[in-house]
C-alpha cells in the first residue's frame, strides 16, 4: 500500500517479514539438514545446527531399503495423470458455466464445491468396494481416477473464475467465423486462459502429490506413491529421524523445486486463484 512508507520503515518491515519467513521455513530447513546427519547427531541434545559431519549414508540406506524411484514414478504418474484427466473433463464444464450460463449454473457450481467439503470417509467404503469389484485396488489407474474425482470440483471452480474474465465477444467472433465448438475451445479459449490453466494444473499436481488419505488406503505395494514411502519410515519411538528426514526430503524436494521455479503460478494456484 502506498501509504507513504519511509525507507527506514521499509527496511524494518522487510526485516520483520523475513524473520517470519525464516521462522516458517525453519522446520523444512531443519529436516533437510538432519537428513545429512548420522542418527546419533540427529538426536543430539542440544541439537547441532551446521557443524556436524555431513554424510549421505541416510540417502543410501533409504534407497536400499525401499526403492525411491518406484515411489517417485508412482507419484508422478498419479499426480500428472489425475491432473490431465481432470483438466480434460473440467475445461468443457467450466466453459459452459462461464459462457453459456443457465438458470442453474450457480446452483451447480455451489453443489460441486460443497461436495469438496463432504468428509471423504463418507465415500471411502463404497469406493473401496467398487475398486475390489473392478480390480482397481492398488493400481495406478484406480488412484488416477479417484484423485481426479476428488479434485475435480476445485479444478472446475478455478477454471470457471479464470474463464469468466475472458470477454465472451472474442469467442462469439470465432463462432461467427465458423469455428466449431471443439475448435473454439481448443484454439481460442484455451490459449487465452493459459496462465489460469497453468496455476490450476500446478495446484492440482500439488494436491494430488500430497493426498494421503486415499493413497494410503487404496494402495499396498505396487501403486504406493511417496506419501506411503514417508509413512513407512515413521515410528512412534522416533528411532530413525535422520533416515526419516532423508525420506521426507526426497519426497518434498520435487514440490519445493518446482514451486521455486514457478513462484507466480504457485502463489496463484495455492491461493485457489484468489491472488492474481
Amino acid at each position, binding site marked *: 500500500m502506498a501509504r507513504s512508507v519511509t525507507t527506514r520503515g521499509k527496511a524494518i518491515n522487510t526485516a520483520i517479514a523475513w524473520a517470519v519467513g525464516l521462522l516458517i521455513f525453519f522446520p523444512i530447513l531443519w529436516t533437510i539438514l538432519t537428513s545429512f546427519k548420522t542418527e546419533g547427531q540427529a538426536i543430539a541434545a542440544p541439537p547441532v545446527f551446521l557443524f556436524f559431519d555431513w554424510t549421505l549414508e541416510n540417502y543410501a540406506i533409504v534407497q536400499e531399503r525401499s526403492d525411491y524411484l518406484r515411489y517417485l514414478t508412482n507419484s508422478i504418474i498419479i499426480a500428472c495423470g489425475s491432473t490431465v484427466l481432470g483438466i480434460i473433463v473440467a475445461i468443457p464444464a467450466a466453459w459452459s458455466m462461464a459462457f453459456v450460463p443457465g438458470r442453474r449454473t450457480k446452483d451447480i457450481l455451489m453443489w460441486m464445491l460443497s461436495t469438496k467439503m463432504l468428509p471423504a470417509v463418507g465415500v471411502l*467404503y463404497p469406493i473401496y468396494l467398487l475398486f475390489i469389484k473392478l480390480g482397481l485396488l492398488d493400481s495406478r489407474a484406480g488412484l488416477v481416477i479417484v484423485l481426479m474425482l476428488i479434485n475435480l470440483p476445485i479444478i472446475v471452480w478455478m477454471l470457471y473464475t479464470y474463464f469468466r474474465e475472458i470477454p465472451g465477444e472474442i469467442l462469439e467472433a470465432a463462432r461467427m467465423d465458423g469455428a466449431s465448438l471443439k475448435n473454439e475451445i481448443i484454439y481460442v479459449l484455451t490459449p487465452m486462459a493459459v496462465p489460469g490453466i497453468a496455476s490450476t494444473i500446478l495446484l492440482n499436481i500439488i494436491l494430488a502429490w500430497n493426498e494421503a488419505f486415499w493413497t494410503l488406503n487404496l494402495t499396498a505395494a505396487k501403486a504406493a506413491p511417496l506419501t506411503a514411502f514417508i509413512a513407512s519410515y515413521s515410528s512412534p519411538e*522416533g528411532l530413525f529421524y535422520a533416515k526419516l528426514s532423508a525420506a521426507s526430503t526426497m*519426497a518434498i524436494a520435487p514440490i519445493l523445486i518446482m514451486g521455486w521455479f514457478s513462484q507466480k503460478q504457485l502463489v496463484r494456484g495455492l491461493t485457489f486463484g484468489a491472488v492474481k
Partner: protein
Amino acid sequence: MSSERPNGLFRNIPAKVAAIPMIITALVVFMGGSLWTMAYSLTKSKLLPKWKFVGLDQYERLWSTKRWVVSIENLFIYGVCMLIASFVIGFILAALMDQKIRFENTFRTIILYPFALSFIVTGLVWQWILNPEFGIQSIIRGLGFTSFEFDPLYNADIAIYGILIAGLWQGTGLIMVLMLAGLRGIDQEIWKAAKVDGIPTWKTYLFIVIPMMRPVFITTLVLVAASIVKVYDLIVAQTGGGPGISTEMPAKYVYDYMFGGQNLGQGFAASTMMLLAVLVVVIPWAYLEFGGKKRG
C-alpha cells in the same frame, strides 16, 4: 440467459453436454457414495456390508462410546482454535506485510511452502520438534533454562494443542497471502480519507477495512473449514491419536472402525454424523453466498 420459453430445456445443448461428465461425477460418486453409506449405517454390518436393518442402534452405540465423544470434543477445540488463531495471526501478518517489502514474491513463496507439503511430512516434522528430548524443549534447556517444560505431545491434557501448532504452521501462510491480496484490493482513497478525518489506524482496520474484505474472509473461511473437518493424515503422522485417545479425530474413528475394528456399521454411522455436521455448516453458507443475490 434464463429463458421462460417452453423449449428452454433444449437450448444450448452443447453447453449442457459439456457439463455432463462433471455433473455425473458429482452425482454418482459423492451423492451416491454418501447415500449408500447412510443407508448401511442403519444395519448391523460387521466385516462385510449386510442388509440387516437395526434402526438407530449404531448411533446409540456411537454416542455412548467415549472415543467418539473425545473425537468430537477434539475436533471442536481444534476447529475453533484453528479458525480464530489462523485468522488473527494471518491478518496481523498480512497487515504488517501490506507495506512495500523487498523480494515480496520470494517471501510469499516461502510462506506458502508449508501449505505445499503433505500433512504426513508436517506431522512427522512437528512430532520431532515437539519431542521434549531433542526438540524445542531441549534447545531452550540447552540455553540455560533447565526447568523449561514444553512437551505437548506427551501430555494428554494438551496434546491436541500440539496438533494445533502443526496445523497452524501449515495453514497460516495461505491465510496471510489471501488476506494480503484482500488488503491490496482496498482503495487507496479510503486510507487517505481516514487519515484526513483523523481516524486511528487500528480503527480504520477494524471498522472500515475488515468489513470491506468480507468476500476474502468468506473464501478463507470455506477453505479453512473444509480442511478442519478432514483432518486425518496429520493425526496419523503426528500422534496416531495418542497419548491414549487424547488426540483422536472423527475421520480417524470412522477409518479405524471400518478397516481396523471390522465394525462397518459403526464406521458408517460415524461418517454419517460427520456428513450431517458438515451439512449444518455448508447449507447456510451456500444460501448466503449463492442463494439470495444474483438469482433469476
